[in-house]
C-alpha cells in the first residue's frame, strides 16, 4: 500500500501539492485527474523519488521512502515502472536495447536470459518482431507500448502512467487503454494514472481523484465521478475548468 502523509511540494513559491493525506491500495487502478500544469506528473515523480517532497512523507508498505539508501531507491524503482508522457525511449538504442536496459544494468543475467525476458515483455505489448527498430521508426502508439514493455522489465508491482494516451489518435488510445486494462488484470499490478483524458480515466480506473490547487478531491468510481455534485470536479469533467 502507498500512503501519502501530509505530502507537500513547492517549486520555489509555486504550490503544487499541499498537505495531502491519501492511500492507494494494492491492485487498484487510481486515476489522478486535473487541469494541465496542476502537478499531477509531479506526484508520480515524487513516488519514485525523481523529486523530493518539500514536507510530508510517502510510505510504501509502511516504509518512508525518503529514508531509503541508494540501493533501496533502486529496488523501489525496479518495483515501480514508469511510463513517461513523451515515452522517453533512449534515442541511441533500438527497441530491444531499450527494454533490456535496466536488466543489463541491475540483473546478473546472461544475454540469452535477457533476450528471453525482452521477448516476453514485447509479446505482452504485442510488439514481437520490432526488436531491431529504432525509436524514430516507431509510431506514437508503438513508442508508448515499448515504454510500457521497458517499465515491465522487472515485473513491477506498481505502474505509473504519465498521460498515457495524450496526443494519440482515438484508435491508438483505445489500444493503449486495452493494454493497461490487460496488464492490470493479468499481472495484478497497482496502476496510478495521471491524465486529463476523461475517456481513458473512465475506461481504466477503479477509483478517481482530482488534484486541484494542491489538494486532492476524491470522486470515487468512474460512475460516481460522472454523477458528482462537487462543483470543481463537475466543472472539470464538463469542460468548464
Amino acid at each position, binding site marked *: 500500500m502507498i500512503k501519502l502523509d501530509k505530502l507537500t511540494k513547492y517549486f520555489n513559491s509555486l504550490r503544487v501539492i499541499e498537505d495531502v493525506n491519501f492511500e492507494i491500495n494494492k491492485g487498484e487502478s487510481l486515476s489522478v485527474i486535473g487541469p494541465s500544469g496542476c502537478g499531477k506528473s509531479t506526484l508520480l*515523480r515524487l513516488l*519514485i523519488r*525523481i523529486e523530493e517532497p518539500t514536507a510530508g512523507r510517502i510510505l510504501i508498505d509502511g516504509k518512508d521512502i525518503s529514508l531509503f539508501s541508494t540501493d533501496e*531507491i*533502486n529496488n523501489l*524503482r*525496479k518495483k*515501480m515502472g*514508469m511510463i*513517461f*508522457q*513523451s515515452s*522517453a*525511449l*533512449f*534515442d541511441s538504442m533500438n527497441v530491444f536495447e531499450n527494454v533490456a*536496459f*535496466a536488466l543489463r*544494468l*541491475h540483473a546478473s543475467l546472461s544475454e540469452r536470459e535477457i533476450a528471453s525476458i525482452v521477448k516476453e515483455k514485447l509479446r505482452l505489448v504485442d510488439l514481437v518482431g520490432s526488436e531491431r527498430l529504432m525509436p524514430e521508426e516507431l509510431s506514437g502508439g508503438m513508442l508508448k507500448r515499448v515504454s510500457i514493455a*521497458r517499465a515491465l522489465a522487472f515485473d513491477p508491482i506498481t505502474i505509473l502512467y504519465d498521460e498515457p494516451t495524450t496526443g494519440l489518435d482515438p484508435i491508438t488510445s483505445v489500444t493503449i487503454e486495452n493494454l493497461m486494462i490487460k496488464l492490470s488484470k493479468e499481472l495484478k499490478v497497482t496502476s496510478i494514472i495521471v491524465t486529463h483524458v476523461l475517456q481513458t480515466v473512465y475506461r481504466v480506473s477503479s477509483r478517481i481523484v482530482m488534484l486541484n490547487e494542491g489538494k486532492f478531491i476524491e470522486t470515487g468510481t468512474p460512475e460516481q465521478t460522472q454523477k458528482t455534485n462537487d462543483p470543481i470536479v463537475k466543472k472539470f469533467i464538463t469542460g468548464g475548468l
Partner: protein
Amino acid sequence: MPYRKYAEAVGHGIIPIFEGIGRVSSLGFEVIKDIFRGKVNLQLVSEQMVKIGVESIPLAVTTALFVGMVFAIQIAGEFVKFGAGNYVGGVMSIGIARELGPAITGIVIAARVAASITAEIGTMQVKEQIDALRALGASPIRYLIIPRFISCILMLPLLTIFADIIGLAGGYIVAIYMGSINPMEYMETAQNLLELWDIFGGLIKTAIFGLLIALIACYKGINTKGGARGVGEATTSSVVTSLITLFIVNYFLSVLFFK
C-alpha cells in the same frame, strides 16, 4: 543614488557567474567521488573516447597543420630580417608545445565536443530521457557524465600530441621551403631550446581543459530547459562558456607552468 543602481546591475551580472562556477564545481566533486567509488562503465568510456578523441583527429590535425604553417611564415620572415633565422626552430617548437598545440586542441574540442555533449544531453533532458534513466535506477552522473569526463581528460592530451607533431611538421616545411631557413639549424635550435617540461606542461594544460570542457558541457546539458530552442541556447552557451573559460584558465596555467 546612481551608484547604487550601478552596483546592483553589476551584482546581478556577477552573482550568476559565481553561482554557475559553484554548481559546476559541485558537479565535478560528485563526478570525482563516483569515479573513486569505482562507478565507471569502461564500455561507455571507450565509446566516448572514440567519439571525443578519434573522431576529432581530422579537425585537430588540419587546424594544427595550417596554424603551424602560418606561425612559421610570420616567425621565419621576421626572424630572418633581424638575423635570427637560426632560432626559428626553437621558437616554433616552444610556441607550439606550450601554447599553440594545447590551445588549438582545446578550441577544437570546445567547439566540436562541447556542442555535441550539450546538445545530446540537453535533448535527453527535454525529452524526459534523463528522468527515465533515474526511473530505471541509472545515475545520469555515472551513465552520462563520467564517461565523457574521463574521455575528455584522456583524449585531449593525446590529440595535443598529434597537433604538436603536425603543427611542427607544417611549420618546418614552410620555414625551410618558404622562409629559407637552414634545416639543420632549425632542428638544432628546436632540440636545444625545447625542454621536456614544455611538452608535459602543455599536455597537463589540455587535460585540465578537457576536465573543464566536459563539466561545463554536461552541466549545461543536464540543466537544459524548454524544447528545441532550449537545447539550442544551452549548446551555444556551452561553447561560449567553454571557450572563455579555456582562454582565462590557459593564461593562468601558462603563468604557473612557464613563467
